Each structure stands twice: as structure tokens, then as C-alpha cells.
């Protein structure tokens, strides 16, 4: 009873957040849905959705976007998990963590230009490849460089939540597992990983979803060899000014995101308190 009262009082904290949701999320989304029903001449139509779901161009693009977002997320996770884990064992983890975030403060376009310089045929990357005897390779405009740079951009967004989970990990569980004779791999897969899963999930949400609509890097580093939904949205909003079609793709993206959220977000330990009290 006492608890219940406290909860209702706590909702006062919730007011600014709710206000934000109403003004900056719900209102724009309604606007977006509204716009998606108009064609370029401003007539009401369902044609945009019809175009999207029947055109091989858009369906291909969707498949492409999901596939590349998956690869980027995977690459980011593979790099970030060990990083986050090892960070936790250093002397000043918080400091190192800050140093991981700081490169994101430099403008994306500038960093992309730097990567163009590094990956170019006379760049440092190729000089290194020549030095170790592999010889220069075409690095730009390859799937490798695109995924590499995209992962580079996303690493901090993955490291942070995972680090937060890892730092909460109670070392006694790990020690207990070791004492009970588990191999390092068993300790990792049975104890450490499941316990840090919430952080991994948060990281995936923070990386996968925005990766679906990447557009700058597809051009800058990928040379438009990779076309994602972000490219199409950009074009509809800025070149053809067909905001209806752009909004339609936006709505599809939002629905995809909601589905992903419901699939990954169904937290099991949640219901326990509300229902029992």
C-alpha cells in the first residue's frame, strides 16, 4: 500500500518525459503517417505503400539495409564486447571509457575524409599492407571498408552499455564458476555472457536500429555500391521532394523498429512486482 502511494507520487518526475513524448515523438509520427498517404501532387492515396511493397527496387533495398545493419552490428559487437570486458580490468576504467567516446565528438564528415585518406591507394593502410608483404589493395568502396567505418562510428554506442553491465558483474560468480571446475569458455558462455546480456541488448538496440538508415557512409566510403533505405529517404526528402514516399519508408522503418523492440524487449523479470502487490 505504502509502495503504491510512492509510485503515484513518483509520476510527477515523469511529466517532462511524457511531455517530450507527446510533443517530439507522437506529434511528428502522426505528421509522418499523415504525409505518407499523400502523393507528390498532394492527393490522398495509398499508392506510396503499394509502390513500396510491390517495387523490386524498394524490397531489394530493404533486404540490403537489414543485411548490412546486421553485419555492422555483428562487427561492432565482436569488437566492443572484449573491449568493454578488458576495460573493466584496467586501473582507470572510467577514464578509458571516456577516451573511447571522445572520438565521436569530431565531426563525422571530417572523420570520413580522414578515412578516405587512410584507405586510399597511397594511404597509410596500403603502405602497411605493402610493408608486411601483402601489397596494396583496393580498400575504398569495398564492403570491408564500409562495414569497418560504420562499425568504427558505432563502437562507442556498443561499448558503453556493455561496459555498464560488465562492471556490475559480481566477481564472486566468476570465481565460483572457476572453483567449480568450469573451463574459461564455460564460465564465459554460462555465467559472464548471460549476466551481461541486458547490456548487449541495449547495445544492439543502439546500433542496429540506426544502422538501418545509414546514408552518409554508404556514399562517402561505400561509393554508393551499397544502397540502403536511408539513401532513398534522403533522396525523397531532399532531391525529388516527394515527402509522401519518404514518409512511407520512414513509417516502415518505425514499424520494423517496434517489431524488433517487442522481440528483444520482452523482459522476463518485469511483471513480478506489479502483479503480486
Amino acid at each position, binding site marked *: 500500500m505504502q509502495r503504491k502511494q510512492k509510485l503515484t507520487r513518483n509520476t510527477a518526475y515523469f511529466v517532462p518525459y511524457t511531455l517530450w513524448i507527446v510533443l517530439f515523438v507522437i506529434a511528428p509520427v502522426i505528421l509522418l503517417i499523415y504525409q505518407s498517404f499523400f502523393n507528390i501532387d498532394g492527393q490522398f492515396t495509398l499508392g506510396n505503400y503499394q509502390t513500396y511493397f510491390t517495387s523490386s*527496387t524498394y524490397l531489394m533495398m530493404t533486404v540490403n539495409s537489414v543485411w548490412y545493419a546486421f553485419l555492422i552490428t555483428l562487427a561492432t559487437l565482436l569488437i566492443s564486447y572484449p573491449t568493454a570486458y578488458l576495460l573493466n580490468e584496467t586501473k582507470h576504467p572510467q577514464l578509458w571509457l571516456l577516451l573511447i567516446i571522445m572520438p565521436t565528438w569530431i565531426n563525422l564528415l571530417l572523420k570520413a*575524409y580522414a578515412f*578516405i585518406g587512410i584507405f586510399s*591507394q*597511397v594511404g597509410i593502410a596500403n603502405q602497411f599492407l605493402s610493408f608486411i608483404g601483402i601489397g596494396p589493395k583496393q580498400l575504398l568502396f569495398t564492403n570491408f571498408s564500409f562495414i569497418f567505418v560504420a562499425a568504427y562510428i558505432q563502437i562507442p554506442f556498443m561499448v558503453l552499455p556493455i561496459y555498464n553491465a560488465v562492471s556490475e558483474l559480481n566477481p564472486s560468480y566468476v570465481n565460483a564458476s572457476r572453483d567449480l571446475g568450469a573451463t574459461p569458455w564455460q564460465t564465459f558462455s554460462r555465467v559472464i555472457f548471460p549476466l551481461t546480456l541486458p547490456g548487449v541488448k541495449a547495445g544492439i538496440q543502439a546500433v542496429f536500429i540506426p544502422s538501418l538508415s545509414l546514408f552518409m557512409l554508404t556514399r562517402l566510403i561505400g561509393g554508393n*555500391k551499397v544502397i540502403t533505405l536511408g539513401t*532513398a529517404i534522403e*533522396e525523397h526528402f531532399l*532531391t525529388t521532394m*516527394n515527402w509522401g514516399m519518404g514518409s512511407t519508408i520512414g513509417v516502415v522503418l518505425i514499424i520494423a523498429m517496434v517489431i524488433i523492440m517487442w522481440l528483444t524487449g520482452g523482459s522476463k523479470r518485469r511483471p513480478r512486482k506489479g502483479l503480486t502487490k
Partner: protein
Amino acid sequence: MKKLISAIIGLLAVCALLAFGAHNLQASSGSNGSKILNLYTWGDYIDPSLLTKFQKQTGYHVNVETFDSNEAMFTKIKQGGTSYDLTVPSDYMIEKMKAAKLLLPLDKKRLTGMQNYDPRFMNLAFDRHNKYSVPYFWGTLGIIYNDKFVQPGSIQHWNQLWQKKYRNQIMLIDSARDVMGFALASNGQSMNTTNPATLLAARNKLNKLSPNVKAVVADEIKMYMIQNEAAIAVDWSGEAAEMLAGNSHLHYVVPTEGSNLWFDNLVIPKTAKHFKAIYAFLNFMSEPQNAAKNAEYIGYATPNQKAKTLLPKAIRNDRQFYPDNRTISHLQIYQDLSPELVGLYNDRYLEFKMHH
């Protein structure tokens, strides 16, 4: 918690300091007074020393705000809420803005320097009698090649890009109108065609170019070409000038069978407020020595013929950037197409990009 509160207070103090600093800087350069002009332009598209000179001469301080595409600028002006006095759209966009009633006509009586401009660049289809616009810069679309990989002088025509020997060596500018445009020109068609079948044929021809296309990129094309990343690029003359300055192996060619001729002109959007300043600025920029200084700083071709005579000989006689009359007579200016057609151009272009 105490630490958190003190951190917040500290941050807010820093904010106050920053606001104070920014305000002071703006006040010292006079941007908060009443004698101002709000110029909305491409980034770094005017010599800053001219702005200082203008302020010294007339007392008007120029606030510069920047955009990165014609369409983005159009959206901002159309939506309102801003107070831009002058902006610099390209030709087809002037037509579009005119049709959307976003432009104010020029008061010719208040303009003093119009006779300085080359008559070839006045009274064009996108703005008859220059009712709304004053020329600022002009240029072409063409081919840049690197003589390390391509025999000098061997590329003169669009169709040569399709040669098998250029496999995976060409970079294209990421612009539907320009890529579709050169494909159309290579087929001997108008770059403003409204015929869907012609567009489809151009797309099919582009698909055949795919094996030769190394990448479709935008502004960063300059960096790539300077770093010898590709042998050939299709890009605008303004970009080409920048590339040639950075790599002596590069050359620029405007195919003689036809290409695009583009203009960036100064116009007064409907959001304008400071008319005295606007006309002072338009007249200031029409003065030959100012236009010449600007052209030298930006590196684009000036439409001001008196300014052109003031430029160093090497620049004004450069056929690459000031092509002869015969070439110019084959060039086409983009017209503002209906939204459906713009959509069609873009759909075909997107299909080409997906193909490759």
C-alpha cells in the same frame, strides 16, 4: 548527489560563459545592430575579405548562413520562420522558386552594375530579362581525367566513357540530373527530355556503363581524384578547378556534343527585410574588382565580363573553364521539370545505382 548538483551548476556556469563569449564576438563584429544583411549561401562561397570591405564601405554587416543543397535551401525558405535577404540558387531552382512564388522581383532602378555582365549569361530561359536574378558564378559539367592513366587528349566525348579499357576506373557525381543528363547527351537527346521511353533508354545505357563505374560519390570526389584513386571522373567545372589545383596530372574536358551549363545567381527570397542593404550588396558584388577578387578566391568562372579582364591571363584564357562560344552554344541549361518527371529521373537513376 551533492557532486551531481555542483557538476550541473558548473556546467551551467560554463554555458553562461560561452553564451557571453559568443555574444561578445558577434557584438564586436556588429552583427546585432540594425544595419545587417542576411546572406544564405553555399558554404565558403564568398571571399570573407569582401564582406569586411563591404562593411567598411557601407556599414552593413553581413550575416552568413549556409546550406549544402538547392533543395534543402528551398525547403527552408518555403517553410518560412527565417529572414534571409539574399540567397544563391542554381538555374533550375530559380525557376522552381519563381513558380512557388518565393522570389521578389529586382528593382532595376536601384541596380547600378548590370551592364558589367556578359550578355551571353543574361536574359536566359530560367529568368527572362533577369527579372529576379543577378548572375554570380557559372560553369559546366564535364570529364576530368588523370594523364597518368589516360592518354592526354584521348577523351573528348561522352561515349568514350563506355570503352572497355576504363573498367572500374570512372567516378560519377552523385546527382540524378547530371548522370542521367550525360547519358541522354551521349544518346544525342535533350538533357531536359520529358519522354519516359528516352529516359529508360538512357538508364539502359547507364547500366552498360556499370562495369566501368568505380563509385558514385559527391563532394569527396575531389579528394579521390587528387589522390589518384580513379582515372576519370564526371563532375562540375567548379569542383574540377579545385581538383586541378591539387593535382597537376588532371585535365578537364567539356564534351563538344553537349553538356550542362549551370548558373548560380543571387536572388531575393520573399523572407527578405533589409532592402537597402540588399541593393548595396548586389551593386557591390557587380563591381569588376570585387567580382574578380571573389572569382580568384572561389575558383569558379565569373559571368562579370569586366571582372574577367582583371583576372590573371592564365585564368581568363583557360579554355577548360572559360570554353569558347562554339562549345557554349552546344551546352544546355537544366529546366525545372514537373515533380513527376523529377521523380522519374530519380527512379531511373536509383535503378542504375542498384544495378551496379
